[in-house]
């Protein structure tokens, strides 16, 4: 892969996105622990480079379907942090008016067409969006983000086959964090490499270090070059580390302390900041400034969400069906 010249602005932007996701998810973690947030929460702490690298290679008009672990992608795609937070807190001003929550955030205004609580279920939606784009002669692409666990669903294979057959403008982006819930890859997949499995459907595939936002970005750009040129779908597999449990409250008894230390050692924020400092692209003051900005934005978003009103129970039956009159 030809390395892209790292420019200062891009480097700062990637770092800022990762900082924002991290600060947001740490706040969500704390407020969930304090029982300010109902339901359950899946965090992407440790995996932020995937979201930052992917989003940096997408246009605002491109469409994105994400997973139950999707906060990072929604934020990286440019969603309003306040409305994301409000949704997670179950408030009326959340993106989904409090009907979706953490696992079902959609932010259509920035092209996020949905997260999904059912593993693998969003894959064909992205392919369908890609099919619509193809039929309508539009230039955008659709992206499906999914985990290593989703690769074992029938829908992954059905979708990969159809997308390849119809040459859909679709990018399949796998976040391979080595776990499906509590089950490690070695126990859930006969073939370790997702990229290798993609080959069965003649999907060009890239397998990259998911802790490095520039590696993710480079692979996605190269893959999208083909997709946008009408050469059909492609797959990018990002190898990444999940630091927290599958959900908040999961004590991770199934992972050794050595493994958990290793996950923390692969912290993409620290690794990237160190590299930028090494290469003279960022000094400590700048790094502190980026982090402070992220914390500030998150503090405002959380305060907004906490103060926001809950939905009116009288609105609970609205939007079960689309009513042309707009009557709910």
């Amino acid at each position, binding site marked *: 892969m030809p390395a892209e010249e790292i420019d200062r602005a891009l480097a700062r932007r990637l770092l800022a996105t990762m900082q924002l996701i991290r600060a947001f998810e740490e706040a969500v973690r704390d407020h969930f622990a304090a029982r300010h947030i109902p339901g359950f929460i899946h965090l992407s702490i440790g995996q932020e480079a995937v979201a930052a690298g992917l989003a940096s290679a997408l246009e605002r008009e491109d*469409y994105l*379907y994400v997973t139950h672990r999707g906060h990072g992608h929604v934020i990286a795609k440019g969603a309003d942090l306040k409305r994301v937070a409000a949704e997670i807190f179950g408030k009326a001003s*959340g*993106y*989904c*008016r*409090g*009907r*979706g929550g953490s696992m*079902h955030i*959609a932010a*259509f205004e920035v092209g996020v*067409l*949905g997260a*999904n*609580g*059912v593993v693998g*279920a969003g*894959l*064909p*939606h*992205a*392919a*369908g*969006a*890609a*099919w*619509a*784009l*193809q*039929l*309508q002669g539009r230039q955008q692409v*659709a992206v499906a983000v999914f985990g290593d666990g989703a690769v074992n669903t*029938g*829908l992954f294979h*059905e*979708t990969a*086959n*159809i997308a390849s*057959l*119809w040459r859909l403008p679709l990018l399949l982006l796998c976040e391979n964090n080595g776990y499906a819930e509590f089950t490690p890859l070695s126990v859930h997949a006969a073939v370790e490499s997702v990229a290798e499995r993609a080959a069965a459907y003649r999907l060009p595939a890239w397998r990259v270090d998911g802790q490095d936002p520039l590696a993710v970005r480079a692979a996605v750009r190269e893959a999208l070059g083909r997709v946008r040129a009408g050469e059909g779908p492609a797959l990018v597999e990002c190898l990444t580390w999940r630091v927290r449990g599958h959900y908040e409250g999961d004590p991770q008894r199934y992972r050794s302390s050595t493994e958990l230390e290793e996950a923390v050692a692969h912290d993409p924020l620290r690794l990237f900041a160190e590299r930028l400092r090494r290469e003279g692209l960022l000094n400590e003051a700048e790094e502190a400034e980026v982090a402070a900005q992220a914390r500030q934005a998150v503090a405002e978003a959380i305060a907004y969400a906490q103060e926001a009103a809950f939905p009116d129970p009288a609105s609970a039956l*609205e*939007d*079960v*069906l*689309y009513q*042309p009159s707009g009557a709910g």
Partner: protein
Amino acid sequence: MAEKRYVRAVNEALCEEMERDPAVCLLGVDVGAPGGPFGATRGLRERFGPQRVRDTPISEAAVVGLAIGAATLGLRPVVEIMFMDFLALVMDQLVNQAAKMRYMTGGQAKLPLVVRTQTGYRDSAGPQHAQSLEAWLTHVPGLKVVMPSGPCEAKGLLKAAIRDDNPVIVVENRTLYALAEEVPDGDYVLPLERAAIKREGRDVTIASIGIMVREALAAAEALAERGISCEVIDLRSANPLDLQTVRTSLEKTNRLVIAHSATRCGGVGAELAAALGEEAFYMLDAPITRVGAAFAPIPFSPPLERAIVPDRTAIIAAVEQVLAP
């Protein structure tokens, strides 16, 4: 107005809607070049091209998922699921995805999506090709379910389904595909939520759906010869149920028989009976009686199948029962 077979009415509805709106497109196994496993899409690929009439692999769940994504971006996909029994393969996409997409996005998504499928009646299709599973769908908020009982309904309800901005499942009946009737030409659209009175009567109301409307009409004809006057209602929609039309009929007859070919246990008739038991109890002069399939898989061998799936004889017996002093 010309006489048309049921399957031809389906074809005409698809063709007219595709002509009217370039966003309408078809997906399914064999819907393209072969013209559909039952001929419902014959000629459409030639007319509208392979992009709008897409042959798909046998990947039912993904195909319904594809339709969801495409509908989100403004297409109006019509998916054919060859046999209703195969809905089992797409239940997640229908129940957890399509039905909830608008609600769980807080109204951001609009899903103009149609799933056409079909069931049959006493044709030895066997345990995995003959079930009427509409009750699975009617239990789920966010889905509309209609069951055209004849060529007119096949055209009018399908056109309405395609124009509706919600997921609609249209359950056709293959046993009726060859049935011909006068069908209005051109823009003939029936409301999705309204039942129709197929035959007026005084003594008993028979609320029926799908192919059982035909059996109910035959039963009413036979009973008329004995001086018993039945009002036959075609519910048309399994969800929502048009309770108003049934209630109005009950004001006159005060007696109700419900007939569907699906398993009686937990069927659409159970919901109808329960709702009317709550709302119209004091109108009733006799207990509501339901006619439906016995609680067993649908067997292959004709005498066995006839023992499980009811017909006009069972409806006549039910009418006699609600009229018994």
